[in-house]
């Protein structure tokens, strides 16, 4: 048994932001009214920054430990405890969760600071920060939870916060709808995730046969990651629904990941999620929540590595999403939509990385992406903020401040925003020595050289490389349309354009620098430089190392591929520059006229939303209506019919009561009355009458005597 150190205060990392959420949630209105926005954001920024420093402290402690012992555990109490089955409430701080937590708290805190300027003067300022803190809690629980169910608290929790923040400006029904779409799509994924947990847990403790389930080893029924890894050997040969348990469970988990991390086929919520305030898009829909799926696959590397089918599914879906989303991103005009599709696409690269077994490379891209995509989103937020303000001042309420066709030339008015945006563009496009170059190139190389997936590596590489050209193209397109040339939003508006406040520019600068230099944590082996990140994460991926196989390739192949990557980035950049720089080229407009169908299909995102509306959603609503009808008219109809039948029977009874039973009773009464009256006639009081009677009676008796008894 490996040694695990204990750390009593790790729970503070997620709980402090929860406390912040509670304070602003319950007292925020009063705080804001009495002490102004300062009081609200003081609490809201303090909590995640404290979490950051605590994380940093434990991170340093972790670095001081011998490599094999780099994990800390904080066990609070048993959350669920039934006989021998326990689910602990415990936080696990190993090298993987440590880097994740560090990134989340760092980027999270920066975005909280940025938001003070962006959300300034919003009437629900307190609510915004309460939700943001709540999100930090959920995300950190997801990252630090030491078992599946605790991770699931975070997993659904980030979905909830995403819903709350997308629908933050709920009075706009479209925004509310986007939030709902996000939550329900996430739920569809969560369903798969939870089924995966069930299958995995029971398969660890026993197995299915024709006669049903037999429990062999109740002690192995566990949901704790460490223990699952320990017992995972017992899954060898185990099957469920005709496939290996590892495959089934991994596909279930990955289904969850496609929703959370916006991959085909459940990516549809993410572009709509841009309805939320821009800091939310930066934090939740770029840097943290959407990367949860990648983190999860990396966390379960020992399980995914067991199934070539699952690895192929992850890698292929990742690669296809990377390309597919990039094509949609090509011609979007809303600056945030471009970034949204770019995020979907970049997440695809991460899945390509973890799918082919290059777990550290996937995490590497996750980290660098967190910096440059947060920077891009916050940059776009800075632009939108300025545009919105300028339109407002110019009394223009009709034009869309997010539409890049209304921008242009903003670089002059907003230098910091421009340069940081450019830095992030260069990083994401994969220009040499920028952070995105190292991470994306590593993924593409690993995809090429992997021998794990059922699809040949070069195909995955080719899909990824094609996507990379498009990435460089659409990113620089957005840069040129926004910052170069002349302003297209009207002179009056232009007079009111100016750079955003300090809280925004400082955060942008920090992220811009990180976008450029972030790559140093994972320098390529090819250059004979130390790769800190791979080394740091190695203990986590120890379990899958023996299972993941790589093809043999020469250094020259690797050099060639790296060169191709650079060319790819430059090609995309040059095309964008040629077509969109300073808004001078006529080609885009001509192309639009020439190929309207292609443009329409891409612009409308291949009509996938419409397809889902027509099938899944319409189907569910239809089934609901049928069920309701069935309930009202068939089931309740039968019940009421039974009731009516019973009433009919009793009505019949009633009739017979009136005419038969009552008739009899009344008849008897009438008869005796009549007889009485008749008899009364005889009682005349005269002796003669009586004598006649006696005589008559005697006669009758004699007659009867002779007739009957003779």
């Amino acid at each position, binding site marked *: 048994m490996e040694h695990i150190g204990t750390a009593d205060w790790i729970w503070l990392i997620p709980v402090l932001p929860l406390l912040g959420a509670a304070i602003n949630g319950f007292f925020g209105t009063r705080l804001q009214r009495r002490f102004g926005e300062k009081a609200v954001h003081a609490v809201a920024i303090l909590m995640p920054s404290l979490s950051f420093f605590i994380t940093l402290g434990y991170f340093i402690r972790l670095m001081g430990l011998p490599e094999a012992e780099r994990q800390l555990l904080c066990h609070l109490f048993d959350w*669920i405890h*039934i*006989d021998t089955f326990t689910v602990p409430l415990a936080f696990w701080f190993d090298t993987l969760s440590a880097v994740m937590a560090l990134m989340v708290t760092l980027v999270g805190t920066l975005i909280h600071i940025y938001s003070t300027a962006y959300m300034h003067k919003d009437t629900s300022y307190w609510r915004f920060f309460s939700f943001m803190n709540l999100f930090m809690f959920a995300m950190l629980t997801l990252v630090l939870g030491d078992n599946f169910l605790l991770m699931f608290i975070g997993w659904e929790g980030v979905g909830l916060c995403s819903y709350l923040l997308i629908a933050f400006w*709920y*009075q706009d029904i479209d925004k509310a709808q986007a939030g709902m779409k996000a939550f329900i799509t996430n739920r569809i994924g969560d369903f798969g995730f939870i089924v995966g947990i069930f299958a995995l847990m029971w398969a660890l403790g026993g197995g299915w046969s024709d006669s049903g389930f037999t429990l062999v080893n109740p002690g192995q029924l566990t949901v704790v990651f460490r223990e699952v890894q320990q017992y995972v050997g017992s899954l060898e040969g185990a099957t469920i629904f005709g496939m290996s348990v590892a495959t089934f469970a991994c596909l279930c988990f990955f289904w969850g990941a496609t929703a959370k991390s916006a991959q085909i086929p459940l990516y549809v919520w993410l572009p709509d999620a841009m309805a939320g305030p821009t800091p939310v898009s930066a934090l939740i829909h770029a840097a943290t929540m959407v990367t949860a799926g990648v983190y999860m696959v990396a966390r379960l590397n020992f399980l995914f590595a067991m199934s070539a089918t699952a690895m192929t599914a992850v890698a292929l879906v990742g690669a296809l999403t990377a390309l597919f989303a990039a094509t949609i991103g090509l011609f979007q005009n809303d600056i945030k939509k471009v970034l949204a599709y770019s995020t979907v696409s970049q997440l695809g690269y991460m899945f390509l990385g973890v799918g082919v077994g290059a777990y550290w490379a996937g995490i590497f891209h996750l980290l660098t992406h967190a910096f440059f995509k947060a920077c891009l989103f916050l940059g776009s937020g800075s632009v939108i903020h300025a545009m919105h303000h300028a339109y407002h001042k110019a009394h223009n309420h009709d034009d869309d401040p997010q539409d890049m066709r209304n921008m242009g030339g903003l670089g002059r008015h907003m230098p910091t925003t421009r340069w940081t945006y450019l830095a992030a563009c260069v990083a994401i496009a994969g220009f040499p020595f920028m952070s995105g170059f190292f991470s994306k190139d590593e993924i593409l190389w690993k995809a090429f050289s992997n021998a794990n997936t059922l699809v040949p590596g070069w195909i995955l590489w080719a899909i990824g490389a094609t996507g990379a050209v498009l990435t460089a193209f659409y990113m620089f397109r957005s840069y040129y349309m926004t910052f170069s040339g002349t302003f297209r939003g009207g002179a009056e508006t232009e007079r009111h354009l100016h750079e955003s406040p300090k809280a925004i520019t400082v955060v942008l600068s920090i992220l811009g620098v990180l976008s450029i230099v972030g790559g140093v944590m994972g320098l390529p082996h090819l250059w004979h430089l130390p790769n800190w990140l791979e080394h740091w994460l190695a203990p986590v991926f120890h379990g899958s190392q023996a299972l993941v196989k790589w093809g043999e390739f020469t250094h020259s192949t690797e050099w060639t591929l790296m060169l191709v990557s650079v060319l790819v980035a430059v090609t995309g950049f040059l095309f964008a520059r040629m077509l969109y720089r300073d808004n001078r080229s006529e080609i885009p407009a001509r192309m639009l006229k020439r190929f309207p169908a292609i443009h329409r299909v891409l612009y409308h995102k291949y009509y996938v939303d419409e397809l889902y509306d027509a099938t899944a959603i319409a189907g569910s609503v239809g089934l*609901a209506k049928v069920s309701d009808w069935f309930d009202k008219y068939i089931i309740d109809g039968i019940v009421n019919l039974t009731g009516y039948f019973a009433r009919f029977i009793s009505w019949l009874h009633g009739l017979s009561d009136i005419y038969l039973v009552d008739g009899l009773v009344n008849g008897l009464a009438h008869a005796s009355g009549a007889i009485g009256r008749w008899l009364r006639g005889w009682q005349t009081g005269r002796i003669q009458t009586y004598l006649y009677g006696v005589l008559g009676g005697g006669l009758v008796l004699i007659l009867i005597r002779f007739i009957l008894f003779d």
Partner: protein
Amino acid sequence: MTESTLLSWIVFTPLLGIPVILALPKEKKQLIRYVAAITCAIPLLLGVYLYLIFDPSNTGIQLAHHFVWIRSFHIEYYLGVDGLSILMILLTVLISFIACIASFGIEKYLRGYFALFLLLETGMLGTFCALDFFLFYVFWEVMLLPMYFLIGIWGGPRKEYAAIKFFLYTLFGSLLMLLAIIALYFNSNPATLVDGTPVPHTFNMIKLITENDFANAPALLGFAFSKIVFIALFIGFAIKVPIVPFHTWLPDAHVEAPTPISVILAGVLLKMGGYGILRVNFGILPEATVWFAPAMALIGGVSIVYAAFVCLAQKDLKKLIAYSSVSHMGFVLLGIASFTEQGITGGVFQMWTHGLISPMLFLLAGVIYDRAHHREIEGFGGLAYRMPEYTGAIGLAFMASLGLPGLCGFISEVLVFLGAFPVFRTLTIISAMAVIITAAYYLWTIQRMFLGKLNEKYKDLPDLTWRERFTLYPLGALIVLLGIYPAPAMSLITDKLMNILQMFHG
């Protein structure tokens, strides 16, 4: 009051309040309300005391109050509590108290209302405490009648229809139950009464469970005895759960019943079905239970999925919540039919969590009805702007009901699925899919009622009052607390359930 009479005190204290209330002049409305609240508070406090002295490690019957009641029919007065019933007793005293506070808004025939209300509480508590089958039946019927009047007199526009439907349905069920009780009685082994008198047959439920094996009893009407008795009992209890297709009394009863009565109905009455199935069917007829388990799981699964879809089509907020109850009580059946530790614990815990969540939902539905005098979901819009606190409360309750992790509904749901999965794989997966529909109908409701532009008609609606907070906040707090730390409730059930499980695994 001694420990042996504690349960009798809990059960009959509400009755003591009735003469006091009836003696008060009917103009003193506030006084009547306070007397009723105090009368409900006493069992609540006694319930807390009961929780404190209850020993969860003891799987037998505790705090029994036991003496011969009607000697000639071998009927005893036998109250007792174990890990299964204590949760239900605690739930009943809590929900009754909250419903009593929520009844402060009632203006019509106050004295009659509270007298019936207190009688109802005694009936419910007695049912959960009784361990003599005849006594159990008596309490079961005692609870039925006040409920009929409470819906039929204080209900909404179609109150007579709903009350009669409720009454006839339950009567039909209890009639089957009575026949089953008599059949069991006449097939039981000789036993002794509590004072040592030997008797040929017994109503003692514990003796029926431990000293009788009905598997080989002579056939009844050509059917195997244990199976036909099982089905009679099951239908009797399942109507109360309720299960599809015997569920249509529930939406009608809920829609017409006044808010506090809906709270009782959802919080406590539905639990009697689940409790009865576990106590009587599982306890007395284990073989027939094993035989019937797949059907029970299927009924549970169908209830979960079907009712979820029906929910999606509802237009009346209260009806939606009523159908969601049908869906969520289906989890109970699915869980207990699996015979796994996780499944049965989950099923019992689901009764508890549903007993906290659905009363909160009905209270919330009552809040908006009191203000707007209708419950049409489509008729609102943008309420979050006017009533942020109310929106937050209903958001919490909806999230708990849809099983958001971190709230108590999640724990019971996930345990049910976890427990059912190895036994009924496909059914569990299909049922788990229903949680997507659950999310859809709740979120859609939130969107139509609370988001978007504020409906001008409701721009002056006030937010929660202190009385409403007093009823909602304790439930909300328990929902959150038990979601993070369920041990206080869960530790009560587990040992007892291991006991039940042993009957099935030998």
